[in-house]
């Protein structure tokens, strides 16, 4: 549906603030750990699209989620990922872009067997 505006050229004059060009070479990536809602929402990062997926797992996830008692118990081989709703098995050696991660992609991961603090999804 079209915008209701006084100016018929409204749509041509707007500034889309979150265009990828505005992020200095980075893309915005969202991460979410399922069944661990003590982290209140998915979190956002600006990452270079050439960053290897493995770096995200090795450096970013521990700094973000390490405070949770379940984190140390994660079996990384069993982790299941989705990128923008698609089930995927990311290759840690390849880049985010090569693993199908684009600007404002949502990465959700599930850690089988771990269901949050005392199994309450917290």
């Amino acid at each position, binding site marked *: *549906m*079209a*915008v*209701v*505006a*006084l100016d018929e050229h*409204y*749509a041509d004059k*707007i*500034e*889309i*603030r*979150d*265009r990828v060009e*505005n*992020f*200095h070479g*980075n893309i*915005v990536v*969202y*991460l*979410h750990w*399922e*069944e661990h*809602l*003590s*982290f*209140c*929402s*998915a*979190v*956002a*990062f*600006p990452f270079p699209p050439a960053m290897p997926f493995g770096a995200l797992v090795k450096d970013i996830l521990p*700094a*973000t989620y390490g*405070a949770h*008692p379940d984190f140390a118990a994660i079996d990384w081989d069993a982790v299941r990922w989705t990128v*923008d709703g698609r089930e995927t098995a990311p290759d840690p050696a390849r880049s985010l872009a090569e693993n199908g991660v*684009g*600007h*404002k*992609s*949502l990465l*959700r991961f599930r850690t089988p067997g771990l269901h949050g*603090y*005392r199994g*309450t*999804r*917290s």
Partner: protein
Amino acid sequence: MNAINKLGLKQRYALLTNGLDWEPSYQPKSAIFPYAEFEGIKIRDWSKWEDPFRLTMDSYWKYQAEKERKLYAVLDSFAQNNGQTGLSNARYVNAAKLFLTGITPAEYQAHRGFAHVGRHIPGVGPRIAAQMQSLDELRHAQTQIHTLSHYNRFFDGFHEFSHMHDRVWYLSVPKSFFDDARTAGPFEYFIAIGFAFEYVLTNLLFVPFMSGAAYNGDLATVTFGFSAQSDESRHMTLGIEVIKFLLEQHPDNLPIVQKWVDKWFWRGHRVLGLVAMMMDYMLPKKIMSWREAWDIYFTQAGGALFADLARYGLRPPKYADVATAEAEHLSHQNWSVFYQYTQAAAFHTWLPTPGEMDWLSEKYPNSFDQHYRPRFEMWAEMERDGKRFYNNALPQLCTVCQIPMAYTEPGDPTTICFRHSEHKGDRYHFCSDGCKDIFDGEPEKYSQSWLPVHQIFQGNCGGASMEEVLAWYRLNPGADNMDQAGSPDQAMWDQWMRMRDRVAG
């Protein structure tokens, strides 16, 4: 002058408005009221507008001046008697901080919005009413600032309220709400603020804050609440009269008005999540739970209202049922956001005490013990171990309401609700179907959202580090933010209480 004073109210009102809707001779009407038509609202006859107030300017000034005199007399005595020491508890002050940074600037925005509507609506009756409301809203902003400035002498977090409103991440929620309304056409603004906010949802904003103030010894705030009350009933009347008038004037108006009611109900519901958390978590002495307030002021009062409006073909707002189901979860989820981002909040946070958790269990038997008590107990354990829980990364925000995407799937409180849309090759994320629908209705508008987290990444918020961003917010780290325990506010309060005990003992 004397002759005018002798006239009855009705005649004086006629003199006030007559001649304001003259027929222009050398300009087309559309040049004088350029905003009147693009929204598609059709008005056959403005003279059918029955003004519900007939309030003339002289009586308006007289009433308002009288209320101001009473208010400022109370404020003076509150200050002279050190009213701040009579509060229930130092924690209460954080509710006042949230009000001053989140609501007061919105009053000012309402003032600007009604000034615009008061210029651009072609009908003279609603135009005058909107101008008066514009003055009311300006007065509300001023009296709130004056009232709460007393606390600024003692407590942190009040000093930069309007600067913070424009910049701080969670204050973009009320700010973007009003920015959205004020950049709409005048009829949408009238429905958004005059009807959806002032009529349908206003009791869920003002009753909690004003009763909360009364229960917690904040006499100053109670008094400005009273001082605004008669204005608010006038605003409610205007809101309901406007929606009825639009629906009576032309059948083509119904789908347009319905879309606005759906949209602004949902947007208002999202903003009121801040009030939900204030009621359930921030008030040391609780009035009632958010769930109870929602049942009384929305489910019952709103139910009667929409039953009445059904004769115009209007149905209750879309997703009202979702909002009602969310009342079980809203306050808990919001307070969890602020607890883990306390480092970036301009008020203090804490975990509910065991007694408060029992109150929450009693008020929320279907949700609290199962989902939220364990979360708070986990964090309490971590605090005891000296590992207070913080979220070290920035949250994903909803493109429309701009709140962290913390809300759960309808019917499943263990899974975050994710929605998205594609527009011109870009992906946009939403917290709910309500927010997604709003985006899909006008993607050109919301693809311009100024999302605080993305703006930090773009380098527009003072720098990339937390310190730089807080400095850009003018938030004093170690004073304005972090937990209540250990804050300068709490230390000062404890000292006041020790002094009082010594005097008493």
